[in-house]
């Protein structure tokens, strides 16, 4: 039983190498759906501080639903299971409190809001989060300084931030704006929902560079993607394959290459084999 052997081996290693390995997110048997339709059918996933995880899978497998449920989108109903986030029951927290506790969702389709600039939006967000943490609001000078620093970090232009939020932005501009918001809010757990979709190669590289810069040993990243190409730039610790509402296979970064090579049919085939056995 090689599988069993590996398990013992891993837990032994964890004890050995890092006493600081803190569990960031622990999803247990999560079931969720929308309007009576079951989408997530028992998700188990554990992410530790400092790690980068990728969830891949064909369209309709439930990847974006998982991201939305974690961020607290109220259109989804959780029917079973639990999610522990830094020792707290995530599913009992309001979406705003999840954000204030350091969870961030980069949207697949960022919303366009005419009349509201990114700057004004971020000023409100940063100060509401500070208020929640019992900190004084940033004054205009301190806020501008922070803006400038993060703009340089993620390579975004001031002119984009003074414009109405996402209104008339190209696909790439929208995604870069998401990354800028992530830089401003400095989340502990960033969930990136199809951040690479709709981007050309140059934009993918810029966005990936920013994600790499923002990722530290103190935070964690969960990438949700359909394609392997993002992984040319971001090296994950784990790759999970989602299919029909479940994580059906997990492995090291090489798993992504295997998927790219063989397509999702190979997963279907494997599951089919497993179910038969």
């Amino acid at each position, binding site marked *: 039983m090689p599988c069993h052997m590996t398990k013992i081996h891993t837990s032994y290693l964890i004890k050995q190498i890092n006493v600081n390995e803190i569990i960031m997110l622990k999803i247990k048997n999560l079931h969720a759906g929308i309007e009576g339709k079951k989408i997530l059918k028992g998700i188990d996933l554990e992410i530790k501080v400092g790690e980068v995880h990728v969830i891949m899978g064909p369209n309709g497998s439930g990847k974006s639903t998982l991201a939305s449920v974690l961020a607290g989108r109220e259109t989804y109903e959780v029917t079973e299971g639990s999610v522990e986030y830094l020792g707290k029951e995530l599913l009992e927290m309001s979406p*705003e409190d999840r954000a204030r506790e350091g969870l*961030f969702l980069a949207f697949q389709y*960022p919303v366009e809001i005419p009349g*509201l600039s990114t700057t004004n939006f971020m000023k409100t967000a940063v100060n509401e989060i500070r208020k929640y943490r019992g900190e004084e609001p940033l004054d205009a000078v301190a806020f501008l300084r922070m803006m400038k620093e993060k703009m340089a970090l993620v390579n975004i232009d001031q002119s984009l931030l003074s414009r109405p939020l996402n209104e008339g932005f190209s696909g790439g501009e929208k995604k870069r704006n998401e990354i800028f918001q992530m830089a401003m809010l400095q989340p502990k757990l960033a969930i990136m929902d199809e951040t690479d979709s709709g981007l050309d190669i140059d934009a993918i590289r810029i966005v990936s560079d920013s994600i790499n810069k923002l990722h530290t040993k103190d935070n964690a990243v969960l990438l949700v993607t359909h394609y392997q190409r993002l992984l040319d730039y971001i090296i994950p610790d784990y790759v999970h394959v989602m299919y029909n509402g479940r994580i059906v296979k997990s492995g090291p970064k090489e798993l992504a290459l295997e998927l790219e090579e063989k397509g999702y049919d190979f997963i279907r085939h494997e599951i089919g084999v497993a179910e038969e056995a």
Partner: protein
Amino acid sequence: MNTLSYFKDKLEHFRITGNGDGLHAIRKNAIDAFTSLGVPTTRNEEWKYTRIGGIFNKDYQFDVRPVFTAKDLDDVRLPGHEQSNELVFVNGVFSSELSTIRSSGLAVLPLEQAAHNEYKDIVAKHLGHSSQYVNDGINALNTAFAHGGVFVEAKKGQVEHPLYIYHVADASDGNIFAQPRSLVYVNENARLQIVETFVTIGSQESFTNHVIEVVVENDAHVEYYKIQGDSNRASQVSTTHIRQVGKSYTHSVVISLNGNIIRNNLNVIFDADHCESHLYGLYCLENETHVDNHTVVDNAKPSCFSNELYKGVVGGDATGVFNGKIFVRKNAQKTNAYQSNKNILLSETASVNAKPQLEIFADDVKCSHGCTVGSLDEEAQFYLVSRGLSKQSARALLLQAFAIDILENIKPEPIHKYVEQLIAARLEIDTL
């Protein structure tokens, strides 16, 4: 005696005696019009959604002297008043004692006087023009009782300070029925900003039946702002009639926040080629406030441009009505006329009735109209909340964002700031 029979007696008296001033002929016509038209009911298509009969079932005190003083005025002044001209009407009658004129570019005198002196041709030509567009008993009633009104002339060149017009109803000792009347003549090349507001003091109710007619000559530039944030014991029918008789530019912003029943008529008449007008409105309502905006843009001449944007945020048990009419007359080729009305409903019990109307008799024109009514976008709310904003502040930011393209058209800085604060307070925005 009830209010209607008071008016009828008074009008009969007027008709017989007259009072010898230059307004009598126009008054007489209006008396006849009111007698035949009466108070509009909801059977009148133009009043389908706004019921004002109840206003006439109340008793009013017509002949009491108001106790409103210069000191009281300090409490109701708008920001920036130190740098503006101020006209004050109390209970519908112009008060020269309370008014302050700072600009040499303005001539201000009682309407009755203007009807006799060098302005008499202008008065004869333009006073009462609005009745061709607002053909109802309410407008006629104002004209029939036109006394204590004011005539304003803006001379050539920039009028240095804005013109603030306060309509004060002193309802300390009883219900007040006020009928202020103004005629503003803007000369060639003149530039003028007008700001009108309505204030009721005292604990009783008020009804203000207001008419202002603005005549705009060649190359003149007029900005007109109306701010309605009176008490919920105050009702108004307020007619603003802008007649562009030369190639000119006008710009209006109507802000309605509070009151009992408010009916606004805004008419923009293009009586010359190449006129331009921008019409903006924002009604941000709660409780049981009812606001009805009726607008007319009449393209009587070719090659004019109008752009109209009215927005509503309606909560509580409040009601908003928008009725926007665009006429393009047969010879008004090359007209560009755009209209848009957007509404957000904040509660189950709030309602909006919207009716865009285009009547086009020319064939080479560009016109559009559109109207939306919906609730606040949930996806947008979630987007903001997912960044740590409370639901309350997400909602407020979205509504503020919705209102901003109206507010940014309020050019006088103190008024812009003031309205922005009123809106922020209404939306319960923390000023960070």
